[in-house]
């Protein structure tokens, strides 16, 4: 493989990995506070992407404005899902909440088919994102650089919230011991809602950038990224934000590079994530940065 080609693949892998990482963070954060795999997370991503579609085409807003509105809208949707589908089941066995999560996922997808129709819709790509930089024979789409940079900014903002603010302190405390955290005066329900808001905002950001790359939206677009990001969260060690980022990037690189080096395997593209999942579960079930889990999901 030529060096130019390698760079091309490298940036593609970094972009894809960033998108997985942003989604994986939501899984890992929700798991941290509720010990729940939020299967509706991928669908939040889809709704976020649709919001941009409507913002730009139905309301005629600029892409940036639509994107910000979409992130906020998806964030609210995440809070709503938690309020309606998970909070009433707080005292119920964990499996009930898990089933509820699967139900929410199907519900959002089906509702999207009814409301948005199943037909894929085009996505507006702002010019400044689809123009190219060129170094010699390497062509880099600005979008390919924009995604990792945006991801880095969002992850930095998230780490600031987690490690420098009161709600962040409460989130980290809840993940270890809810009862003691409540004793300290933390209104746990509010912190859980906030966690969903942040996680959903990141998923929507990822979904919006995902839609820019393809460039279309459809009601089932969240399923595969959602599943792979879940794998990324497990690979990194579920419950760890840093692990989710690392897991996402690893997954992005494995997926792109394995096809780059072995083009004949491109039909198995989606299989790599799950092969990694099996390997991690066999050899290091807690993931790269995960701690020992006493219970399974």
């Amino acid at each position, binding site marked *: 493989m030529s060096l130019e080609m390698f760079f091309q693949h490298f940036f593609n892998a970094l972009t894809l990995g960033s998108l997985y990482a942003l989604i994986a963070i939501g899984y890992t954060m929700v798991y941290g506070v509720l010990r729940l795999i939020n299967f509706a997370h991928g669908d939040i991503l889809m709704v976020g992407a649709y919001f941009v579609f409507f913002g730009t085409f139905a309301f005629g807003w600029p892409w940036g404005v639509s994107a910000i509105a979409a992130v906020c809208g998806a964030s609210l949707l995440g809070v709503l899902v938690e309020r309606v589908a998970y909070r009433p089941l707080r005292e119920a066995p964990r499996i009930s909440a898990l089933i509820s999560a699967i139900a929410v996922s199907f519900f959002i997808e089906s509702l999207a088919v009814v409301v948005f129709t199943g037909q894929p819709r085009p996505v507006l790509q702002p010019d400044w994102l689809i123009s190219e930089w060129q170094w010699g024979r390497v062509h880099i789409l600005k979008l390919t650089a924009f995604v990792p940079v945006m991801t880095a900014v969002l992850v930095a903002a998230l780490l600031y919230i987690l490690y420098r603010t009161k709600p962040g302190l409460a989130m980290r405390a809840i993940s270890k011991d809810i009862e003691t955290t409540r*004793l300290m*005066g933390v209104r746990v329900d509010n912190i859980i809602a906030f966690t969903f808001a942040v996680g959903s905002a990141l998923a929507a950001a990822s979904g919006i950038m995902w839609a820019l790359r393809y460039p279309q939206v459809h009601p089932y677009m969240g399923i595969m990224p959602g599943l792979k990001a879940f794998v990324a969260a497990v690979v990194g060690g579920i419950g760890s934000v840093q692990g989710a980022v690392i897991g996402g990037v690893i997954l992005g690189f494995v997926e792109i590079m394995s096809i780059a080096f072995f083009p004949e395997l491109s039909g198995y593209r989606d299989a790599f994530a799950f092969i990694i999942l099996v390997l991690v579960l066999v050899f290091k079930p807690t993931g790269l940065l995960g701690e020992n889990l006493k219970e399974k999901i």
Partner: protein
Amino acid sequence: MSTPDIMLEIKDLYVNYGGICAVQGVNLSIQRGSIVTLVGANGAGKSSIIRSIAGLNRQVTGDILFSRKQGDKPESILGLKPENMVRRGISLSPEGRRILPHLTVRENLLLGAYSRNDRAGIQRDMERVYELFPRLEERSWQKGGTLSGGEQQMLAVGRALMGQPDLIMLDEPSLGLAPLLVKEIFAIIERIHQTGVTVLLVEQNAYAALNVADYAYILEVGRIALEGTGKELLANPQVRAAYLGG
């Protein structure tokens, strides 16, 4: 002392755990500014009472009345959520310390002050805690999980103090500590008490608890078997036989 100034009053408390009655009709009261202790064997219902006050038990009947400051009208706090207790002036240092192992000492203390927004006051109280427990200041950037048992206990007490309580409840603060550390913890309890905080102490170490207590209740299988001042109970032959090794 003229009329008794009651800070906390428990009336006819019953606590149920899935059909098992852990507390069966307990009445007790805590005078403002005193150290009151609940003494008893494992399973006597001590922790159940303290957890009910903190709002951690659901299946509770009876009533718990609390008046934060002198002259406040006693209000029922039964059924309030635990996160509201610290805002009302009641802090609990729970059994087993329950330090958050992955947070630093400093973060554990800040969590104790979560309900407050007065930055200067929080800073002042943190310095007070560090003055009370110099070991914690030395380790303020260390993770809670790396502390020794005694240090974790100090952190648990310090964290409860960060909520600016008028009533501090300590559940088994001496459990699992070496005798020298037990002495240190009890000395600290007296110092906290001297700053004007009312103390409710749950202990299996009856001798040490009765020694510092103004008033004590002895619990046996969910009921109060005996009550009296610390001195009275220390001298009581029944107590001596059952709890103080003769």
